[in-house]
């Protein structure tokens, strides 16, 4: 009888945990952080950005849903388990206008696996389904994005 009760309690606990984890993906949504440092030193940090990957293009939505930064990448290859791509075109969709931002260079690392992996030559780790993006524009603006992919489509 005691064993039956113990099993029931374990099942109940598992059910409770399952119920809570079912809500976790929602909690993990749009947790990206984008940092923009312009050439005059001004820094803006945007929280709760949503990150969508469609093919080799990243769509980064501002937390207020008023701006979208489109980052097109190519040359995607793998450095051990992480995918590394090179951004070559950036477009800002905002306030009803679409403007290109001329890029100088950039790199994006994507962890499309379910495990944590180290960035190459770095002690920094990349969580499952997470990315880090670094951009430098022709006008000397540095952009970095950290976060979890909210959507992935081919």
């Amino acid at each position, binding site marked *: 009888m005691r064993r039956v*009760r113990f099993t029931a309690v374990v099942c109940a606990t598992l059910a*409770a945990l399952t119920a809570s984890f079912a809500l976790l993906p929602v909690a993990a949504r749009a947790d990206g952080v984008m940092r923009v440092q312009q050439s005059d030193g001004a820094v803006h940090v945007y929280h709760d950005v949503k990150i969508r990957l469609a093919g080799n293009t990243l769509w980064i939505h501002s937390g207020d849903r008023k701006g979208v930064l489109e980052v097109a990448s*190519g040359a995607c290859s793998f450095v051990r388990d992480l995918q590394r791509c090179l951004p070559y075109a950036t477009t800002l969709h905002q306030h009803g206008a*679409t403007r290109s931002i001329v*890029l100088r260079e950039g790199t994006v690392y994507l962890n499309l696996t379910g495990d944590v992996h180290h960035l190459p030559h770095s002690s920094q780790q990349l969580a499952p389904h997470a990315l880090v993006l670094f951009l430098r524009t022709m006008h000397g603006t540095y952009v970095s994005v950290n976060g979890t992919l909210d959507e992935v489509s081919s």
Partner: protein
Amino acid sequence: MNRIAHLAFSLSVAVALPVAALAQQHGAPPSRSEPPSRPAPAVRPAPAPVVRSAPSGANGGFNFNHDLGAHGGTPVHGSQPPGAGTTTARLPSQRRYTGPVVRNGHAPGNPWGWNHGVPWSPAPAYWGGGFWGPWAFAGLPTAVYFGAVPEAQIVYPSYQVESDSPGAELLQDYGLQQTPCGPPDLVVIWGPDNSVICAYPNNNVGPGNYSVDPETFSLVSAPPP
């Protein structure tokens, strides 16, 4: 048994409620308790305050006023709306020889197997499309110059291959060591977008011109003259 069911329900609610609250906090629309026109929070650098013109993102969204300039940057015509799909890279201009293939014994047999089955396409704005490393054309002065190959009155510059690049993996597969282009009797490898690198010949690859077949990750030699 009723007590157990009651306990399970209580536990579910106790655990799920804070998480749901957290989810609402993160996933809430921007209008949550703050005016929608509020700009993103700014982190000011410690040095002297920066005098800033009104940011273009003052009505929300992102602030790229320096890059967009007084005229609001370069308008893009015919662009897809956000979320419509993917941006396609331009077609690569790649030299493709039709001579004998020097098989890559280390590459998996399946197409794009060397790249986890993912097709590789060049990234415009990078030398060699990024095959030899993340060397953007705008940043090439910082790349290590590795000689050049003159051909038909055009001089093709070469740069040092980055250690984590696909090109470095290709050289490693063939046991080749890169060397500056220029001297005769080298292995001359033409990569994507008319990029070129040179290596010392070895037992696997003799001197001469080769192109890269990115799908099979192998070298294709130039047909004999």
